[in-house]
Structure formats: C-alpha cells, structure tokens
C-alpha cells in the first residue's frame, strides 16, 4: 500500500492549483452564475491548452493518456475553486464512454476535438422520473429503415445548452429492465431536439429536453443495440466518484473558510475558534472530509485499475453525499449570520455541494446498493 502521489500527479495538482487560483476567483464564479452559457470560450481555450480536456483520453486521440485517478484529482481541485462550465459533462459523461466503448471512427471523430476544446458534449440520461436505474430510461427509439427515431423527454441534462453533441440513452425494447437500452450520439441541433434551461438553486446549467422524431443514424450508436446499460453502469460509477472528488474539493474549501473565519472572528474577547464548541464542529468537519477523501480515492483507484468497484463506488458516494452536507451545515453554523449572506462566498459552495449530493445517486440510493452487495 502506498499513498504517495506520482510525480505526474503532483505536477498536475500544482499546476491546477496555480491556474485555478489565477483564472477562477470567486468573482468569476459569480459572473458565470449570471452568464447564459455558464462559462467563457476564453477559459475553455485555456483548459485545452493546459491539456486537461484530454487528460484521460488516449494519446492516439489527442489526449494525455492519464488514468481516471488523475482525472479525479483534477476534478477535486476544480471543485475546490468551483470551476464553472461543461468540463464534467463533456469529459466524464461523454468523453470517457466514447474513449472506452466507441468505435474507431467515433473515437477519431469526437475525442480529438474534445481534447482541443472545439467540441462540447453531454449525456442525456435522466427523465422526469429522476431515476438512475434502467427503469428510468423510457425515451423511445424506434427502428425506421437504416435509422432510429427518438421520442420522449429528458430532464436534468447538464450543460445541454452549450453541448454540440449529445449521448442519448433510449429504449429500443420496451420494458424497465437493463436489456433493450441503446445509446445514440446525436447532434444537439438535430431536427426535433428542443432544449430549455432549468432554473436551478446551484446556478449550474441543467436542461429539460424533448425529442420529437429525432433521427439517429445506426452508425451513431455508442456500443451495440440493446446493450447500452453496461456502458451506462460504468459511466454512472465513474460519474458518482468524479462527483465525490468535486465534493471533496468543495468540502475542503468550506472547512478552510471556516477555520480561517473562526481564527479571526472575535467574540467575548477571544477568537471563536478557541472555543471548544466551534473546535469540535471543525473537528467533525475534518473527520467527515478525510473519510470522504479516503473512500473516494479508493473507489477512483479501483475504477482506474479496472477492478470491480460496485461496492466501493457506493461506499464513496453514499458517505460523501452525507458528509459534505454535514460539512456545509457546520460551516454555516460556525460562520454565524455572515455565512448566509449572498456576498459571502460560502453559499456558492453549499448550493453546489447540495446539488452534487443528489447527482448520480444520493446516500439512500447508494446505501441500498451497499446492502445488496452485502447480500442483505
């Protein structure tokens, strides 16, 4: 067992820290809350220059060939600075499955432009039922000659407002089981696709989408017909752990803000951080954070190694979802009234952490999966 970072990982973290400190101050995060797209093309270009967009893609397709563990380390830093934009949806939700399951032409078509910053993508998965299981996928894909016609609705689709292409999860066979689900790669401007931004508390960019007789050619299929679920399962595992990594970064920021505030804020003639009640709140935050960091690293490492990780992923997201909510609540409590003002940065973190808590399964969802894995 070995807990050191590799030299490459250390370099990645260092450059991430200095880049994000420079390019992603909270003023930028706030400005992007008001921005229709939610990010700037200039920033996106810089991310491409840093080599981050293709970090985990194979070198043959313009990537840096690093593994999923390194990607989660980068995501943790991005969470720390609340980097706005479609990085997660493009890289984790669409890029990774294409890199792992795409055909050779698909990889050549999508991965290099993604790595270069010229192509944005997302995964249209959840529907108004808001489920992450096979039964949640009811958008219909019906065979029409050499193509399929997509009909149905998607909800909570991240960054669909800026995505050039969508990976759409659809039913090619009726039912609620894992058989008969197929993934299609569709241009977002295809005829019959409509998209509307949702008003969200976290000011992230989620959309409602409807598909009306949208033509999906057979060669746009990701994976085999009816065989989309195993690909989605893998994406969902990666996405859950990637979210955990972001949340660990967010929690680290919230704890850091709290410690620094408590060290400066004086009441009764002493910094409040010298009071045991506040100290124990902070200690509890640290315990939750270190637990989240440890279990997230374990799950990310297993996914990167290609080992079975169902149980570890469920441990990680189940724990981190609860832990980071507790951390946010204690951060607010220790900050007192200033912490719930808009002008103070804490709320930027707690709103996003809450959205992440439920993304790709909340703790109830993942505890159920742990229970199944335990054979109970």
């Amino acid at each position, binding site marked *: 067992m070995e*807990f050191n*970072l*590799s030299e490459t990982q250390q370099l990645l973290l260092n450059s991430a820290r200095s880049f994000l400190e420079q390019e992603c101050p909270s003023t930028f995060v706030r400005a992007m809350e008001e921005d229709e797209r939610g990010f700037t093309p200039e920033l996106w270009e810089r991310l491409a220059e840093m080599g981050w967009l293709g970090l985990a893609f194979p070198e043959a397709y313009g990537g840096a060939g690093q593994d999923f563990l390194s990607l989660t380390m980068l995501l943790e830093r991005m969470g720390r600075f609340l980097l706005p934009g479609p990085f997660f949806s493009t890289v984790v939700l669409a890029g990774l499955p294409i890199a792992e399951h795409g055909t050779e032409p698909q990889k050549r078509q999508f991965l290099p432009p993604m790595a270069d910053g010229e192509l944005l993508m997302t995964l249209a998965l959840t529907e108004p039922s808001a489920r992450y299981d096979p039964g949640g996928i009811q958008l219909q894909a019906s065979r029409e000659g050499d193509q399929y016609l997509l009909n149905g609705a998607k909800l909570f689709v991240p960054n669909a407002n800026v995505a050039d292409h969508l990976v759409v999860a659809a039913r090619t066979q009726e039912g609620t089981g894992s058989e008969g689900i197929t993934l299609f790669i569709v241009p977002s401007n295809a005829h019959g696709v409509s998209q509307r931004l949702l008003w969200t508390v976290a000011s992230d960019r989620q959309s409602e989408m409807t598909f009306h007789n949208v033509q999906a050619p057979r060669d746009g299929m990701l994976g085999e017909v009816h065989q989309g679920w195993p690909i989605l399962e893998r994406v969902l595992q990666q996405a859950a752990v990637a979210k955990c990594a972001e949340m660990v970064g967010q929690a680290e920021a919230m704890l850091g803000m709290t410690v620094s505030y408590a060290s400066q804020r004086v009441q009764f003639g002493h910094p409040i951080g010298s009071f*045991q009640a506040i100290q124990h709140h902070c200690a509890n935050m640290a*315990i939750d954070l*270190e637990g989240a960091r*440890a279990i997230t690293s374990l799950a990310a490492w297993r996914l990167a190694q290609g080992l079975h990780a169902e149980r570890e992923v469920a441990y990680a997201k189940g724990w981190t979802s609860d832990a980071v909510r507790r951390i946010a609540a204690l951060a607010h409590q220790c900050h007192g009234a200033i912490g719930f003002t808009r002008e103070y940065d804490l709320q930027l973190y707690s709103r996003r952490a809450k959205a992440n808590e439920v993304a790709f399964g909340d703790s109830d969802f993942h505890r159920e999966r742990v*229970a199944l894995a335990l054979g109970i």
Partner: protein
Amino acid sequence: MDFQFTPEQAAFREEAARWIKENLPPGWEGQEGDPESPENIQVAREFRKRLAAKGWLALGWPKEYGGSTGRNADPMAQVVFDEVCASLDAPVLDDSSQPLGETLITYGTEQQKSVWLKGIAEGRWLWAQLYSEPGAGSDLASLQTTAVEEGDEFVINGSKTWNSAYIGADMGFLLARTSTDTPRHRGISLLLVDLKSPGIQVSKLPLMGGGHRGLVYLDNVRVPKANLVGERDRGWSIALALLDRERSSVAQAARCQRLLERLIALGKEVPGPDGRPVASNPVMRHRLAQAATEVEILRVLGYQVTWMQGQGYIATNEASICKVLGAEVLQKVALIGMQMIGLYQNLDAKERWAPLRGQVASLYWSAFTESVSGGTSEINRNIIATRGLGLPRG
C-alpha cells in the same frame, strides 16, 4: 497511490492467517464476552509464547533487536498482522508491548535496548500502561504521582488507574512528575517499573459491561535510574508518541467487520417486528450498509496512518481522526446488534435465551469505553482542531 498490498504483504497476510488458524487453541470460539477472564488470559499468554517463537512480536523491528529481516521488516507488517488477528479474533494480548518496543528503539539508550527489546520480542512480560490517575484523566499533565531521585534510583509515590495491571501484568511503563518547578508538561518522566517491586499494590474495579480496570498504588517504590526512558523531565512527548502508535484503526476496522458479518448472519435468522428476518427490514438494511461503509473508511484511514508513520511523517491528527471514528463505528455496530435483538438484549449471558451467548449485549455495554479509553473523543477532537487545523488554543 496504490491500495493493493505488495506481493510481500499479501503473502505475509496469507501466511499469518494460515499460521493463526493452525495455532488457535482447540475449540477457540473467540474472545468477545470477557477477554480478560483468567481463562482467556491464560490462553492468550500461551498464544503469545507461540507468536514470540515465530518472531511475530517484533514485526518491523531491526534485526539486532530481535526483529526479522526481509518482508517482515516492512513497517506495514505489524498492521497487516493486527488486521489478520482481529478478523480471526485471535487471542492476542493488547498490552502495548509492541508500541513500547518501538518507542525504546527510538528513544531508549543502547543499554535499555539490549535489556528490554529482546525480552519484549520474546513475550517475556505483560505490560501495563500506567498513565492515568484517579485525579488525572483527560488532563493527564496534571498527574500527581512523583518520582524523586535518590542515589541510583527513583522513588515513586502515587496511584495509577484504568490500566490492565490486574490481569497479572509483570511490568508497567509509568508517567511520573520529576520536577515541580517547571511548566507542567516539562516535569514529567517515563519510567519502566517492575510490578513485583515492594510497595506496589494492585486492585481492580469491575466495569458495567463485564471485565475490569486495574488500580495500582505505589508507596515508596524504588526503580533503577537505568529504567528512565529518554531524558528526565522529557517523558511527556515520548508517552504521547507511544499513544499514537497504539493499536491502529486497521485492527479496529477488522474487528468491526467481523462483528458486522456476524450481525448480518444473525439478522437473516432473527425475526423482526413483522415476523420476517430483521435484516430484510429496509431501515436495518441501511443501518448495516452505513456501518459497512464506515468500516471500510476506517480501514483505509488506518492504513494511511501506518503508511505515514512508516514514512516518518507526523500523523497525530490522522491518528486522532481514526480514534474518534473507530470508537463511533464500533459503538454503531454494537447498537445495530441491540436493535436487531430487541427484547433479548436485556438477557444476561447466563440466560439460555440470550442470543450469541450474550455477546451482543456485552459488546454494547463494553463499547462505552471506546470513546473514553486511550484519549476521549473530545480530547481527540481538540487535537484535530488545534494540531490538525491550527485553530487557536482556548
């Protein structure tokens, strides 16, 4: 980052598990219940002799002090071994002799190393940690036991409590005040005391969950100066470093894991309020799943602490995190057991209706000590806040 055991560690794990299974006393059913009963202590002493003969009481120690070379010199070896022992519920005596040995390797004089390490590696003595006093618990630095220099000896007076001296311990490592005119952390020394010395009286206090804790009275007890560990008046930090090295949370995680597995099996048999097996109850399922999650976190964090210590990093903050979490997880597991058996939790071990020979209730009542002994959870949270996070001291 690599969460896998090295091939050497994996091989040692297997070897240790095989050897322990082969060397468990016949009919061994585990030590939950009353690990400190005279019968269990006897079994544990026998087992320790076998471990010593195998060289496994000095895992990770340098060869010249009775340690092994090769893969067992890995600092991880001890924790790997502790994990295996805990998951097999082997009758190991947790008397801090290994952390004490490691402390002597770091702080002891050459003479002390030659006198004590070999004997510790051979399992010659049972040790008792003599830190706490009736008047000095969490505020350990307020301890009142004194050691006064007289010629070649220290003369010790005072009393020590919450220890394991009563199980027939041979030796104690004791904190005593050697100076009164210095800041209080500065006037404390660490001494090795023969518990058969004249002037020592040992008694025991029964605990609510079964088992006992020892009380040691010291009346003009003479200890050779050669038994002073480290410098005079500088024992405080050595004693705390020794605490950091105490049983890692990896072993605690393994113990919780074993108990949890037993509870899952129990929950499939015991009927719940609706007559169906209690483990199929959704609330119970989620409790078990949550506990399993926390056990795994504890295990990973524990290995991280061991790795940090092996690399020479200070892991006080991380060790405190493990201590707090480890206590909470065990208490949580114990509570789940009680929630499973409902009315039966009130049955004494002697009662024939008691499930698992009363072990569930016994675990629950003895688990109260977890968040108190070896540093209360509150003290550990203070450490996390001040040393880990750098908050100002109150």
